[in-house]
């Protein structure tokens, strides 16, 4: 029975990775860049909720909403100031800029909030669920995380399939020039992608900090890296891939912690990534890159 508990908690952790990975994979698919500052947006989301709830004494739901708004604006602003001027530059220049933005965000948070760990109050207030005569215990955070992630995933798929903006995103991800010739505003579409990714990061931040209630300027760094691994694992550029990659990563991490060694868990996660990439370099759902001349 404890196996099922570990599994469900792994799925919950994995759902958070999946939400973050969606941002990575969408931005990669459309702007063809790795936004390494994405993880730090989570941390900014966490601090925003902390300020709204603890300093201003507002209810948690308001904290999450404000965090979504702050992170969305921040993501779009970063894209406009740091990445957009580099649209024609080499991918390496963009990558280095993204790493620079990541350090900038961490240090700004350090300057404002200091290095001390802040104790985060969970935004989830629903009670824990007890199943199978108390042998499986699910915290409110676990349940909410899984439900929220599934809802967001389904919503995102529908948005891309049905909405005009979603179709524009598909077109831009395949051929920016041809998309422009269809009348699609490519820059606006990229900005929307950053907005969606950053909003998801804010929600991921709320869930992550609720499940692991400590907050430092480096809170987003490791989950960010792991979500990036999840995105590559699932096939970077693929939305269902990011979801599957995230869940798998969370499950592997949690089961490794439970049955092998909690110190070794991260090493095992990365080892699995290496094996997957050796066997299938494009990731689980990655598209084969074939170009027709």
């Amino acid at each position, binding site marked *: 029975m404890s196996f099922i508990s570990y599994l469900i908690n792994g799925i919950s952790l994995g759902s958070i990775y999946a939400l973050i990975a969606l941002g990575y994979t969408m931005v990669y698919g459309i702007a063809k860049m790795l936004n390494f500052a994405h993880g730090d947006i989570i941390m900014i989301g966490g601090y925003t909720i902390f300020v709204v709830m603890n300093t201003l004494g507002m209810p948690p739901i308001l904290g999450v909403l404000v965090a979504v708004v702050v992170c969305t604006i921040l993501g779009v602003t970063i894209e406009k100031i740091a990445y957009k001027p580099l649209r024609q530059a080499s991918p390496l220049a963009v990558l280095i800029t993204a790493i620079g933005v990541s350090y900038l965000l961490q240090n700004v948070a350090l300057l404002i909030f200091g290095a001390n760990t802040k104790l985060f109050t969970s935004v989830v207030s629903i009670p824990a669920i007890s199943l199978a005569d108390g042998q499986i215990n699910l915290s409110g955070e676990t349940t909410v995380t899984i439900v929220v992630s599934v809802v967001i995933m389904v919503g995102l798929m529908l948005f891309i399939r049905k909405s005009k903006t979603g179709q524009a995103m598909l077109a831009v991800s395949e051929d920016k020039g*041809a998309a422009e010739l*269809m*009348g699609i505003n490519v820059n606006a579409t990229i900005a929307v992608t950053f907005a969606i990714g950053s909003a998801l990061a804010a929600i991921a931040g709320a869930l992550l900090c609720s499940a692991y209630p400590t907050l430092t300027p480096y809170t987003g760094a490791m989950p960010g890296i792991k979500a990036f691994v999840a995105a590559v694992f699932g096939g970077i550029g693929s939305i269902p891939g990011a979801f599957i990659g995230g869940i798998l990563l969370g499950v592997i991490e949690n089961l490794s912690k439970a049955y092998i060694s909690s110190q070794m868990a991260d090493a095992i996660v990365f080892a699995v990534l290496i094996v997957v990439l050796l066997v299938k370099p494009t990731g689980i759902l990655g598209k084969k890159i074939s170009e027709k001349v």
Partner: protein
Amino acid sequence: MAMLEVKDLEVHYGVIKAIKGISFEVNQGEVIALIGANGAGKTTILHTVTGLIPSSKGTITFEGNDITRMPGHKIVYLGMAHVPEGRRVFSQLTVLQNLKMGAYTRKDKKEIEDTLKMVYQKFPRLEERKNQTAGTLSGGEQQMLAMGRALMSHPKIILMDEPSMGLSPIFVEEIFNIIREISKSGTTVLLVEQNAKKALSIANRAYVLETGKIALQGDADVLMNDESVKKAYLGE
């Protein structure tokens, strides 16, 4: 006044001047051909007109609007469609999704449906394959899809870049018949072609480009009988 007017256009790639001050015009209802060898600058001109490449000098006017500095996606809304070189269909989307993408600038669902029917009438093969992903089509079919996609925006003028490139003779014949039809139905056509003979056979007027400059211009049937054109471009 001409529908499309290009005046003293210059385009640079870095320090290299690719287009060295050219002027031409396209009138409502005409089929205009831009012909010339590889590297003469034909594709560059089309890309500059539709806003994909910035110009360094000169003006481009479309129906009285100065579009010289207008971003490409806005130009589409004015009624200009571009069938790019190499077709550039969205290979991972289906034929139908590609066609719908062509109607991105339009809102009226009923009108889009009507245009779709018209496109299927012109290209029955696209209807047969509407649920197939575009990447699985043959080169000729992709060319048809690219043309159909451009027609979906209901353009006043359609710019076509090397529509016959890499196609079998049967497809080339078919593509040129369709261009003739498009012109007959009232859409103005600006055609860039290496196949000068074919292009001149359907054009009203033509411009001959040589390394970024216009070397010759005139009525298509006059150019077809011009000795220098014959020698250089028609292989006679």
